[in-house]
């Protein structure tokens, strides 16, 4: 499996400094090991709604399928975020309806990046890096930056206010999670 690495940056929450990080365009075994050994105990402890996400199983199922691609973000020797995207879904916004987009199936940041955890360095920017990666993949696939996703409730403001994605409201077919989509223009603006 190919693994290209891009140099990206996250912001150390305490010092405020930008810190170099690595974006892998494929989830590797060490990322899954990290998720299992370092993330899972923390998410389970706090009974987070997606705390039982089994990335190992998801990855095993999605990895052989050509329509899916995975990403892992690494910094300071730790996995800071994971994402699986689907490249064959279609848009819902009227102005770009039925055009292909990159759909974010799963996106999760490490627990210490979602709330302060003693002994763990918190980094900000995991979401921005992953959204940028999804947009770049969309561009590479000829989809002009169009992306879509179903947001976890606590992340709605990030996609709407920070990323400029269009909020299409709760999706009754998806446990009423809000569906967000990014237009080509917003994607271009986001990457500038």
């Amino acid at each position, binding site marked *: 499996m190919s693994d290209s690495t891009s140099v990206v940056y996250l912001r150390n929450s305490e010092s405020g400094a930008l810190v170099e990080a690595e974006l892998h365009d494929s989830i590797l075994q060490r990322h899954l090991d990290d998720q299992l050994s370092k993330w899972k105990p923390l998410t389970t402890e706090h009974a987070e709604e997606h705390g039982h996400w089994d990335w190992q199983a998801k990855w095993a199922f999605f990895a052989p399928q050509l329509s899916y691609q995975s990403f892992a973000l690494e910094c300071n020797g730790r996995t800071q975020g994971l994402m699986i995207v689907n490249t064959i879904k279609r848009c819902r916004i009227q102005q770009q309806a039925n055009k292909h987009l990159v759909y974010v*199936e799963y996106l999760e940041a490490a627990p210490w990046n979602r709330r302060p955890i003693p002994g763990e360095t918190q980094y900000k920017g995991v979401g921005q890096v992953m959204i940028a990666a999804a947009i770049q993949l969309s561009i590479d696939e000829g989809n002009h930056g169009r992306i879509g996703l179903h947001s976890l409730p606590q992340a709605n403001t990030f996609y709407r206010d920070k990323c400029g994605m269009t909020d299409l409201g709760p999706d009754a077919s998806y446990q009423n999670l809000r569906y967000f989509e990014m237009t080509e223009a917003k994607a271009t603006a986001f990457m500038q």
Partner: protein
Amino acid sequence: MTLELNKEWFDKRIHQDEEYEVGAGCPGLEAIQQTSECGQAEREDEEFAETFAFGTLIRFLRRDRRLKIEQLAANARVEVAELVKIELDPNYVPQPRSVHQLAAYFDLPQRALLKLSNVTMVHSTQLRDAAYRFAANASQISELSREERAAMTEFVEFLGSQDS
């Protein structure tokens, strides 16, 4: 794919005082099972994994016993046409009777096999995860290799542990 953004982009985009959380995707499989309304596409993926695993398991077991489809159909008293669909069409949901017959013939745990075949709508996260792994391991293999047989054995043992 490579992401080529300069450091200034990150400096501009990521602020120290921001408190945004990120996360996307269906919160969990348990939620799907409880509400039966989360993510048709995802549910289809997961049911596909299970029925794919079910069909593959039956195919492996048949080949392991060196049976032709017609022979298995006769021995297990299942229609040939249905057996073909079970083995080859991952979207096919078999008749409950056929699942019972196959479970009895191969001495497999009935209840776990019914769940796996999607005849019943009762699912467990562990079963789905095991189906994912089995489907992933099986999907690239054409011959019943030692690894394939090991995966099949492990999966059958898992089904046995779930039959309660």
